[in-house]
């Protein structure tokens, strides 16, 4: 019985879940000269745009496949956004600038072949901060365009506590369900409650993600020491 346990322990040591930490560095999206794919987003609405509980879903887009390289999902708006500036006049024309704070959510990165490939099949991280600065333009009281800055940070699962990533990116809204259904090749809507894919019905909005600067910092691979059969047996003598 003791021998069986020892063999099982040896197998577990030989096949660790985390083969290698992601490679530290700063990576840029292809639209600004880097190797990382830009992406697309959807945001599920709970009552309308900029509402509490609205849930983001961002996925890489390589021109044919969503989410093959990266996926940020389920950060949600935790409190009513703060209006920083409004130039909208009595005719309903002008701009509004908002600060929006999201909480929760996760990050998933593909491993093999990516610039940050350190040996794992994939990397997951838990989002720590997510802030958006949202600029809207209005014509006759109707919102006719929206751009955003997104900033995010997350801590990788399974590695040292300082192993983290940071991202800053641009967003352009391309449509919402008030004007028609979610188009093909945009990410499904996700709901932060249960953090699950809830399909394409919405209601919500969608658009493009680009100008990404993505940094991986502080990651170390904790080496797994080789251990001989004799050494294992010695532990139990």
């Amino acid at each position: 019985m003791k021998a069986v346990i020892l063999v099982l322990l040896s197998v577990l040591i030989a096949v660790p879940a985390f083969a290698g930490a992601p490679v530290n560095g700063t990576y840029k999206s292809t639209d600004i000269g880097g190797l990382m794919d830009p992406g697309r987003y959807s945001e599920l609405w709970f009552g309308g745009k900029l509402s509490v509980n609205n849930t983001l879903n961002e996925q890489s887009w390589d021109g044919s496949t969503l989410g093959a390289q990266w996926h940020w999902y389920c950060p949600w708006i935790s409190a009513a956004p703060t209006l920083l500036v409004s130039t909208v006049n009595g005719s309903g024309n002008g701009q509004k600038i908002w600060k929006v704070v999201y909480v929760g959510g996760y990050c998933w990165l593909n491993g093999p072949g990516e610039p940050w490939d350190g040996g794992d099949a994939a990397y997951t991280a838990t989002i720590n901060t997510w802030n958006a600065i949202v600029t809207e333009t209005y014509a006759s009281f109707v919102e006719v365009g929206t751009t955003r800055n997104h900033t995010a940070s997350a801590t990788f699962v399974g590695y040292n506590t300082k192993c983290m990533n940071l991202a800053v990116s641009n967003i352009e809204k391309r449509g919402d369900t008030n004007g028609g259904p979610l188009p093909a090749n945009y990410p499904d809507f996700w709901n932060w409650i249960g953090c699950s894919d809830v399909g394409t019905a919405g209601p919500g909005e969608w658009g493009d993600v680009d100008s990404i600067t993505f940094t991986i910092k502080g990651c170390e691979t904790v080496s797994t020491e080789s251990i001989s059969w004799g050494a294992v047996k010695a532990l139990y003598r």
Partner: protein
Amino acid sequence: MRNVILVSILAVVLAMGAVCAYAGPPVNGIYKSSDGDFNEGREASSWPGTNGFLSPGNVLHALSYPKLGDDWKILCPTVLDTLLIFSTVSAGTGHMSYLLTYTGGYIELGGGGPWAGGDLVYTGVIDKYYETRSMQFVDGTMVGSVSDHSVDAHIVGYPASCVVFGIGNGVWLGSGANPGGAYPDYRDSSCAAGPTNGHWGEIRDLTLTVQGCEVSTERATWGAVKALYRD
């Protein structure tokens, strides 16, 4: 003889009216660079004197691209004030976002754009210009930055209701000496070339709205013109 002179004067007046500086206002509408309505662009912001990034006094110069300034120009709004919106930076790593308020400056819309109404160019006086700038820092060094631009302007030569307003995404690509060539030059507060230090990048994803623009030259009948010269 008196009639001949009168007719000649009237003919000249009518001819001038037909070739006036303001041939037609820009066409009202909502235009998006992402839809291919017009070109996206590039920016160069000067840091005059000893200024650094995000300093009051910095001057923005942005032009549509690839043919610089063909579709639109943003000429020399100057940073008036900066306000920190939030910071998550700890030990030199994290994010910061600022709100920049600009003053002054002009925009130009090329007469060949989707808003074409007859003029060679439309000049707008900037009434309000804001930029939100979000930055990523690693160990005290900025490694990336994006921004949102927001502009409100009124068009010169047309009714006060004739306005242009819009938004766009910006991305920082570098700083230091102007890269030249395919980027706008650095400008000073009088909008003259000269500063040698600053940062440059791109402006994309623009939505421009033209609204409230009407014909500025009133049509006159021959009878109405003659009535002006009756004794």
